[in-house]
């Protein structure tokens, strides 16, 4: 008789979403960009991706072991971090530097703050910025992509990123298919957009952040007098808007919070691109907004159902 009654606590209604499935979707969405990077920059980008993923997974395992916490390799989040970090690096970077980046991402930013879901900024992004500040030379050394226009090449092997190049060097088509210099994952705009569409269809990310981010960036470039479409397609903007800014842990949960967050990212990106002495501003702007997320969420707490606003001057 007792076995007939099943007593359980809430929640009674579960979706099939698990961290593992979501991370798997992100990995699938990043595949076009990864494949494109191998086509554009050759086998070395494959090696870089493999090194980053392997180091991240290993470090995640070791640091969880040292901290005597349960093992979280199975949720695939370390693979996503490694893949994202690799896609943010130039192809000819020293593997040791890439491994140092993995150390920053996994051990310092992620595990020291409590592991998945606890990090206050995006691990891959923080690692990229630490590397950029620590090794400005190797991090800004862009190898000439396959089939990039000759005018872009400073010498036989290096090419300027579209953001630092002379205007008119690259056409929109070059930017769309990735015939330009840059980090291995950011050059091919089509592959990134494909990944973004897949994520939205699978409902892994909401389209609010990428769309508002890109729209604000376009509007801001109009205001400061830059070519909006060129700005959207070049540099890490698409990679940042689709894969970095939409990270669950470090973006707001509320709808209006997302809008504010994405607006801030867009404004700071273009301001940094136009007026700072660095060619790229995507990573810095997303990092800045990541830090502001708790405050944005406090501002945009949704009203509970049935809540009536208190009249002015009515105390308690």
């Amino acid at each position: 008789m007792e076995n007939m009654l099943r007593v359980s606590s809430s929640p009674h209604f579960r979706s099939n979403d698990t961290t593992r499935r979501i991370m798997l979707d992100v990995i699938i969405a990043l595949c076009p960009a990864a494949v494109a990077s191998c086509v554009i920059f050759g086998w070395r980008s494959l090696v870089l991706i493999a090194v980053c993923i392997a180091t991240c997974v290993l470090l995640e395992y070791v640091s969880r072991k040292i901290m005597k916490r349960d093992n979280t390799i199975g949720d695939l989040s370390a693979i996503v971090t490694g893949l994202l970090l690799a896609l943010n690096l130039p192809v000819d970077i020293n593997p040791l530097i890439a491994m140092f980046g993995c150390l920053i991402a996994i051990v310092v930013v992620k595990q020291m703050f409590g592991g998945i879901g606890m990090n206050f900024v995006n691990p891959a992004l923080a690692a990229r910025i630490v590397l950029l500040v620590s090794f400005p030379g190797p991090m800004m050394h862009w190898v000439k992509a396959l089939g990039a226009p000759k005018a872009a090449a400073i010498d036989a092997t290096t090419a300027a990123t579209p953001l630092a190049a002379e205007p008119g060097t690259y056409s929109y088509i070059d930017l769309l298919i990735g015939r330009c210099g840059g980090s291995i994952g950011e050059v091919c705009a089509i592959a990134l957009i494909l990944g973004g569409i897949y994520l939205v269809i699978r409902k892994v990310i909401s389209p609010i952040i990428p769309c508002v981010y890109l729209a604000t960036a376009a509007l801001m470039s109009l205001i400061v007098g830059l070519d909006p479409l060129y700005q959207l397609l070049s540099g890490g903007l698409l990679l940042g808007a689709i894969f970095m800014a939409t990270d669950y842990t470090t973006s707001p949960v509320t709808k209006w919070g997302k809008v504010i967050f994405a607006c801030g990212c867009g404004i700071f990106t273009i301001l940094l691109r136009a007026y700072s002495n660095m060619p790229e501003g995507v990573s810095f702007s997303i990092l800045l907004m990541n830090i502001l997320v708790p405050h944005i969420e406090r501002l945009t707490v949704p009203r509970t159902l049935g809540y009536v606003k208190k009249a002015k001057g009515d105390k308690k």
Partner: protein
Amino acid sequence: MAKKSLFKEFSKGIIKENPVLCLVLGTCPTLAVTTSASNAIGMGVAATAVLVCSNAVISLLRKFIPDKVRIPAYITIIAGFVSVVQMLVKAFAPAINDSLGIYLPLIVVNCIILGRAEMFAGKNPVLPSILDGLGMGVGFTAALLAMGIIRELLGSGSLFGVQLIPLQILIFILPPGGFFVFGMLIMIANKLNTRSGKKVKTTPCDGCPMADNCVDKNCDNVKKEATENAD
């Protein structure tokens, strides 16, 4: 308060109450000048000299300084010694004077020195005050030196100006790296303190310079002291 041995007054500043890593005082010079090991030693020695001298003088004058104007009086004494130290450094080690820059005269407002004057030298006899200043100074110098060595070695690949390794991770000599190394050292100091068995004291009134004049009657520490005085 039970009398502690003189050695304890000296040794407490090194790990147990390390001014930088446990009391978290004087963080400004700590983060600013530790980009190289030699800077760190220069800063540490200068601050120690000021600390010992000012502790001694303040302890001698503690019965003559009116309570209401004690802070200006302390600052004047400390400023006098800082001027002396600065002139000495300028005369005998101009290179260190150049690299420390504004942070050398800023020892005047270093929290550690005023804090020890307020917490210790103003209430204790001369000898313990000198030892307290010396211990705190050694602790300060040791913490600075540890930070300076780590940051110089990783950030510019050298130690005391001698190039050792070809690797340069620039972030370590920039402010973010300074904060990072600082946090790591605080973590190690906490670990050392908790490992030795005793829990680190965290009552808010411990070491608070205002504890004597505290008017919060609900505070447990004040109540305890009141009952002790009644006995």
